[in-house]
């Protein structure tokens, strides 16, 4: 367990542990071509907690999410959700875990295009064993609570990005799971809708007492998260100073970022490409970037 987590747990006390990962590893391929996407990760998340996992592209964030969501079997280590070791479960048992104990929110929403908003939520309820008018009523209620009462019969193609993400959130909550896993939930949204989703995620954790694990580069989520973890090369590392890339908006660790000084201020970039883009029009991009 790295320093940030140790410090955190020392301050947290004994809340109910909803997610517990120990020595979690995932290796793709074998021999010389083997890629260690997740490498001995330990992670404890408690009820009502919001944990944000950040890190550069290819650091293993999404693989970690699929492991703790029971979509992928770890090469080594264990994952406990609500006290059950899901890493030892069969594929059919994992299906039940995903159906009842974990809710997923995706970057690209992943709504079924042929169904309307209400039906997208109702499908999840059907999978959870609820059918008939009760399921339809519950789907409508969930969407209404998320401010979608006027869009129940709209197909995904007729919804804005923010609305689609609300439907996706309602679907994730349909079977009342304790654990919500969100992969870049604001990445495809504009600033206003992104902010709305951030607030919804906060409410899900703080008002409903659910555990929320988010993979994101969004600085607004960083601000409301209880903990921010930095994943690099498949391992959690002590988080350093973070800055926002003024070109792409990605949060970068200062130590490993590409810096550039402009008008007595140092800007940090996720890649040389972003730095080059900044250099092409520094005045505009610097004015758009919030002062750190």
């Amino acid at each position, binding site marked *: 367990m790295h320093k940030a987590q140790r410090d955190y747990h020392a301050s947290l006390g004994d809340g109910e542990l909803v997610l517990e990962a120990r020595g979690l590893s995932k290796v793709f391929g074998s021999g010389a071509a083997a890629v260690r996407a997740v490498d001995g990760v330990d992670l404890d998340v408690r009820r009502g907690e919001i944990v944000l996992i950040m890190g550069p592209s290819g650091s293993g964030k*999404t693989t970690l*999410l*699929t492991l703790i*969501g029971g*979509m*992928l079997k770890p090469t080594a280590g264990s994952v406990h959700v609500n006290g059950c070791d899901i890493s030892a479960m069969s594929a*059919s048992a994992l*299906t*039940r*875990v*995903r*159906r*009842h104990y974990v809710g*997923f929110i*995706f*970057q*690209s929403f*992943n*709504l*079924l*295009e*042929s*169904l309307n908003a209400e*039906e997208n939520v*109702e*499908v*999840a309820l*059907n*999978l*959870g064993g609820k*059918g*008939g008018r009760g*399921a339809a009523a519950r789907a409508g209620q969930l969407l209404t609570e998320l401010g979608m009462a006027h869009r129940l019969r709209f197909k995904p193609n007729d919804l804005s990005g923010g609305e689609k993400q609300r439907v996706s959130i309602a*679907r994730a909550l349909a*079977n009342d799971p304790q654990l919500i896993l969100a*992969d*870049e939930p604001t*990445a*495809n949204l504009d600033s206003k809708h992104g902010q709305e989703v951030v607030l919804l995620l906060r409410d899900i954790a703080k008002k409903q007492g659910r555990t929320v694990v988010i993979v994101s580069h969004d600085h607004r989520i960083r601000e409301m998260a209880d903990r921010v973890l930095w994943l690099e090369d498949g391992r959690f590392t002590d988080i350093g100073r973070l800055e926002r890339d003024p070109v792409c908006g990605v949060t970068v660790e200062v130590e490993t970022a590409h810096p550039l000084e402009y008008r007595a201020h140092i800007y940090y970039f996720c890649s040389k490409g972003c730095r080059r883009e900044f250099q092409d029009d520094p005045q505009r991009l610097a004015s758009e970037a919030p002062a750190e």
Partner: protein
Amino acid sequence: MVPIARKNILSDRAKFLVALGGVTLSIVLIIVVQSLYEGVRHETGRFVRGLPGDLWVTERGTTDLVFSNSRLPEDAGTDIGALEGVGGVHTLSGRLISLQVGDSEVRTYIMALQPVPGTAAASPAEFTPAGGEIIIDRAFAQESDLDVGDALAFGDHRFTVSEVRHVGNVLITQFAFISADDFREVFGIPNTVNFFLVSLEDPSRASQVMAESQRLAPDSAVFTTGGFADLASDTATGDFLPIIRVITVIAFIVGLAVLSLTIYSATIERARDYAVLKAIGASPLVLYRLVLSQSLLIASLGFGAGVGLAFVFNSAAEEVVPQFITYIRWQDVSFVLVVTAVMSFVASYLPLHRVARIDPAAVFRA
């Protein structure tokens, strides 16, 4: 439950209509061809059973009325009529003849039915027109543009149409009746008839009468009417059967190919949806049921449309081509229903494999 299968299929109307059209066409083709086959079988049997008599005496080796020739000595009829248990005997003679209608030539199978003198057989009016008259089949009348009062000629002999009705239509020809005297004069071979139709007074003596009749008419065979009807039906459709089977297989393959391609491409296009459903907890069984439901939905709609259209097509075809004779049996519709179910199961096979391999983690890829 949200009807995902129906919503998926109907979300792409063009693809749905193509698939439905393909399956419907396949079903129509199978039913129409099968009904044509059954039409000939049914009509041949119906005609034989509709003539008077419980037993048919034929020359040995004769299998039907049209495709084989039967010759029996005329005087054997009197001896058969004298057997115990026999109520009456008719002679039946027939020949496929070309007749002149105006400047054109038409072909029909002309027959004559006559009670054997000295037996108690009656002359049914529906098969025994007066001299110089001819009763023709409706399909033949339509095809040859004939009506009551029109004349047909064979050499110097003229026959006036006295009645147009459903006499007998076996696709390659239709039956017509003239009087026995006219037949004997124009087409007859002296002292020879084609068949004896024996009516039993005492049905319990059928087997004895059959054996005795065979002895009295040398080189003959004796059948019950039902037996000869079945034999004639088999003969009339025997050459046809392999063709029917080939067309049925082709129609099945066409329907299967269209349905398979539609379901497979729909599965590929919606691979992400299946991954999402897997990710949120759909079991493999739920996904297999979804694929199969889509296939069954198209197949069952295609079946319904196909059966309906087959009736419409047969009816329209009989109007345009009068000889086109069809008979749709519930057994054949049931067979096509089974074919349709098999089609939808087979069409789901590859998509099911595809769905089984879909990785739920694919939902995290943007």
